[in-house]
């Protein structure tokens, strides 16, 4: 199978993730969209590694997974805390930090 298709799939997944971040209000969904973008990037890395015949891209994919895992820990903790204080998981409501 042509590896370029994987790149296209990666681009589609990334776009879906980005649009999800921009249009959804629920913090959980936004968070999942971010994960989707990260995994789209992972897919692109692996596909490029395959195309170039080197292992660099695959190694980077592992790093991204570690980062994503840590991000989940911090991000979910934030979302839970915000929900506890405000009874809402909307990303638009906590907007006090502004001009």
């Amino acid at each position: 199978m042509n590896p370029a298709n994987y790149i296209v799939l990666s681009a589609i997944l990334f776009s879906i993730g980005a649009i999800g971040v921009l249009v959804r209000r629920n913090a959980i969904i936004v968070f999942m969209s971010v994960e989707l973008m990260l995994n789209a990037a992972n897919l692109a890395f692996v596909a490029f590694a395959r195309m170039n015949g080197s292992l660099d891209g695959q190694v980077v994919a592992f790093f991204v997974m570690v980062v994503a895992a840590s991000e989940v820990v911090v991000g979910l903790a934030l979302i839970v805390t915000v929900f506890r204080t405000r009874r809402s998981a909307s990303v638009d409501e906590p907007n006090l930090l502004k001009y």
Partner: protein
Amino acid sequence: MPAEGIFSLIWVIIALPFAGAAILLLLGRRTNAWGPYLGIVTVAGSAALAILMAVAMFGRAAESRTVGQDLYTWVLVDRFQVHMAFQLDQLSITFVLLITVVGTLIHVYSLGYMAHDENRRKFFGYLNLFVGAMLLLVLANNYLLLYVGWEGVGLASYLLIGFWQHKPSAAAAAKKAFVINRVGDVGLSLAIMLIFVTVGSVSFHDVFGTVDKANQGTLTAIGLLLLLAACGKSAQFPLQAWLLDAMEGPTPVSALIHAATMVTAGVYLIARSNVIFDHAPTAALVVVIVGCITMLMGAVIGSAKDDIKKSLAGSTMSQIGYMILAVGLGPVGYVFGIFHLLTHGVFKAGLFLGAGSVMHGMHDNVNMRRYGALRAFMVITFVTFVACTLSIMGIPPFSGFWSKDSIIHAAFEQNAFVGALTILAAGITGFYMTRMVIMTFFSKARWEDDVHPHESPKVMTIPLIILGIGALAQGFLMLYWGDIVSWLEPVVGYQEKEVPIPEVLILSLSIGVVLVGAAIAILMYQRRPVPVEAPHGSWLTRAAREELYGNTVNDVLVVEPSLHLTAATTWFDTKAIDGIVGSLASFTGALSGRMRRYQSGFARSYALSMVGGAIIVVLALILVRLS
């Protein structure tokens, strides 16, 4: 000669008053109870040492009288070497005696005069500081150390003129004295630099030994710069304006600093630098001219002032004019300039302390139009004041006669015109001193209502009596018993010239003119009632009351242009510089005010701008790749 025996204590003479000042000023209120006595003891100790040294020096042969004491190397920069070293010779010991003895008397007098002042301790601290600095000035063996003393007395003068600084007039007078003195001090510092560049040393010994090798123009420049310094310190024309305002200080200060010692430092400077002036006749001529102008100006101002202290201040200017004139005459005059300085130091201190005693009994009123008929109420003050007056007028056998007559004679030796001017000034002196005595002690009583004149306490009258005796006997004793001429000759040089006019004629002329001046004063003030309000007066009287417009000249030439310059600079600073900086700041402020609106607080809009930015970057990359 190196310092041995009693002379190894030269540094103690200076250190004692400085130590007194340090204790009084650093320990503060704790010394309130005994501080003034400590102040007197330190100066009296210096006076005792000075007398012992003078006696020891008197016993030596003339050529071994100069003693040097080198304490340590003070400045050592390549060729520039200055030692903390003192030189005690005939000239400096006479000054040391004048400063410490008159200083002790004035310290004692101040004990009574300042008895009710809550800052009495501080006053004595400043007086000690002054005495120490003045001794440093006259004992230094090089110009740089002299300069330290010179600035020290300037500082003490400033502090003491402004001693009652709660009075705005006193604070302003102190500032004025300080600023005008700065002008002179610039002259002295330039002179020292020029001396170092020319000779390669600043010590008196090296400078006077090699100065004849320098060229004429340089020497004249040094001489004129030294004269500028002397003008500032000694209130000579054109830097004379501060002395009359300096009378805002307490009267003992006027007596010690602004009559007897500090204001004569200029005369000391010129007499000490006699070798330089001998080689620069042009500079010496300017010295004589300045002396003549000030001598007449001071006398005219003294004749019109109704404030007893200001009238005496005018007289001081005039008498210092005599001294400056005398030292400008060259070897015929140096000795007599110093001689007059010594007699003047005593009788003028007596006059000021007498004026202080009168003020003490008259509620600190200084207006002579409010005095009158005081002779019966303060007998000791009256008698001593009259003794000092006869002395300053030059009536034989009072001491001023011997010294002033010597100057008049020396002036005739050099130039008949200058001689005639000195006689004229002597006549004016006779007028204003007689006027002062009549307005204060004779004529009718014109006191304010609640004034009860009384004699001052003993602590004030005893110094007056001693100074009065000095005014009577000092001149004769110094001239004939002490032989001042041959005493000072090794240091300042002396030569006598033939005078075309017979001596008897000069003598009778000068005494006659003085008596005429006194007679005019008697006619004007004793025969006629003295009005309490000053009459309008002739143009000369009005001009003299305005100090011959010295302040106006300063205002027009210096103060007004400086104020305009300040205003222009301030305008440039606020409008131009602050304008540029300020508008830059407000522009940045306005810009950031707009920019911060983009911080909306919505996380999703931040995300959108990030995505937008990323898309732009990607598009840019693609476009660059394609092209």
